[in-house]
């Protein structure tokens, strides 16, 4: 597709490669000198307006970066949206990771473990299930699928207390399983998404020819269709990673042991200490700020790194909605 070749710096728009060029890609034709009359003008007004919107969304993050470079004194005495003369970032980072016997380091590791384990396990369950629902006919297929979809309307937090009650009965609270098991199992959207995607991305004839070659159905799934499902797998993985990494309510109620906290609960705890004793523990303020900055890096990196996959995944997944 010419659009994709003509614009190599936009690898995040594989949708353009999968579809014929359209209005949205008109600008590339303009660049190539084959511009249409009406679409050739870009709007400065719209661009300026959208840049202003983007500034609003970036402003708190900019503040966070600036604040992470300041000592407690500078935080209170200098203007919040610009750097102080003295860069305290590395001291702050060092303090954040070593305070309270390296508590933040432990929380960060916990968050990684919970998020990756839930996302890997959950993506695997959703992929197998979505494939089964999309490609096999069996009694109860529709009923089970609709049942799972109905679960989407049940709010996660209304479910958290029931899960807590059950888990405390069987002694699973205050263990990593209390976070990982619910996070990987309750993701109806992942299943829905994998089913829709499998339906459109995996041709029946491919499965059929695999069978003729004598491959078992699971081997076909893992070795033949896996590659076709990559964008969807990356999308589901990423969204599950985000939802577990960002989860606060479930770990808050499940975990008592600070050594098991994820960063969200840990930071909230530090914030509680920073504000409860007023100025006395003002030293926690830079730790909360720097810890916050550190906690958002993994996800931003994951999003940027997997960008070309999840943008395609979302577009193809929404075709059949």
């Amino acid at each position, binding site marked *: 597709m010419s659009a994709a070749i003509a614009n190599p710096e936009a690898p995040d728009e594989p949708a353009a490669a999968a579809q014929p060029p359209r209005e949205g890609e008109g600008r590339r034709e303009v660049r190539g000198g084959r511009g249409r009359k009406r679409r050739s003008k870009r709007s400065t007004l719209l661009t300026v307006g959208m840049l202003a919107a983007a500034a609003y969304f970036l402003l708190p993050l900019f503040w966070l970066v600036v604040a992470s470079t300041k000592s407690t004194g500078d935080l209170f005495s200098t203007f919040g949206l610009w750097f102080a003369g003295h860069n305290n970032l590395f001291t702050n980072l060092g303090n954040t990771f070593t305070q309270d016997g390296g508590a933040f380091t432990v929380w960060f590791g916990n968050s990684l473990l919970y998020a990756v384990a839930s996302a890997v396990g959950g993506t695997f369950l959703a992929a197998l299930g979505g494939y089964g629902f999309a490609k096999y006919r069996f009694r109860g297929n529709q009923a089970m699928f609709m049942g799972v979809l109905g679960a989407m309307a049940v709010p996660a937090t209304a479910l958290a207390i029931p899960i807590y009650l059950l888990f405390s009965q069987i002694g699973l609270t205050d263990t990593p399983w209390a976070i990982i098991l619910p996070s990987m199992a309750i993701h109806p959207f992942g299943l829905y998404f994998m089913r829709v995607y499998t339906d459109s991305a995996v*041709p029946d004839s491919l499965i059929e020819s695999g069978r003729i070659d004598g491959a078992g159905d699971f081997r076909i799934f893992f070795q033949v269709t896996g590659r076709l499902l990559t964008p969807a797998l990356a999308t589901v993985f990423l969204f599950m990673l985000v939802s577990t990494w960002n989860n606060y309510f479930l770990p808050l109620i499940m975990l008592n042991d600070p050594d098991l906290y994820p960063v969200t609960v840990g930071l909230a705890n530090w914030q509680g200490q920073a504000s409860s004793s007023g100025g006395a523990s003002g030293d926690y303020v830079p730790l909360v700020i720097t810890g916050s900055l550190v906690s958002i890096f993994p996800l931003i990196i994951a999003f940027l790194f997997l960008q070309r996959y999840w943008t395609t995944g979302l577009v193809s997944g929404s075709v059949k909605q």
Partner: protein
Amino acid sequence: MSADTAPRAAAAPRTAKGGKGPRYARTGYLFVAPFMVAFTAMFLVPLAYAAWFSLFREQMIGGNVFVGLDNYTRAFTDPRLIQGLGRVGLFFLIQVPLMMALALFFALALDTALLRLSRTIRLAIFMPYAVPSVVAALMWGFLYGPDFGPLAQLAERIGATAPDFLGADLMLGSIANIVTWEFTGYNMILLYAALRAIPTELYEAASVDGAGPWRTAWSIKIPLLRPAIVLCMVFSVIGSFQLFNEPSIMRTLAPNVIVADYTPNLYAYNLAFVGQEYNYAAAVSFVLGFVIMAGSYVFMLATNRRSRS
């Protein structure tokens, strides 16, 4: 079924989907079994257990006694719960239309050819989604704050006083701003993805008829986006009514404004983990769940009816 597989139909079950033989049905069950087992264990069983649990009451004398639906009659007349529901209902009415309008506008703007730097802008608006809501609330809490918040500092420079963002009057609006900041980009991406999936022939026809980009957006894109918009709205119903993280963080900054029953979820949490009223907390969770499901259902019904008429 596609034509190329049809000739084999007699010999072997044609395709996976057409394969009605018992062997393939069994394989289908094997594929969905892991998900269904996990789902049953983590969703159906806890719900059933908590439903049973919500029918009891812990008493000083006599321990755990069966009280039938008493916890539910209590919940439906509990002013603290009703007030919280009213608050998140108000929150929903103000915040969600604003956020969806912004998300829709941004998605449409990104989908036109009129925009420079569209890729950068898209990423910038989406980025807050990658920020944990706890961190978002912490950041905005500092930004709102009277001590070293830049808003207060700016106001001081021009000799004014910044409004008390953490006071009782503005708190709900301040939380609405945080939630809008977090989720506008996410909704924008979902709508944008749906826009990219619209067949291009429709635009070409409109273009031939002389429709400009705004006219195309209004008359073609928005009507076609309807299912995606409804989906986003339903997610937003769910999100608003279970509001917890942001108020719970803001509570550390303004404990007198964000009371223990500020939102229904905060109330359920405090009932269970501060007051040890687990049975009643379970009932409150169920009431909240019912309200949310009823809300999403009514919403879908209303939008469906309108699209038919």
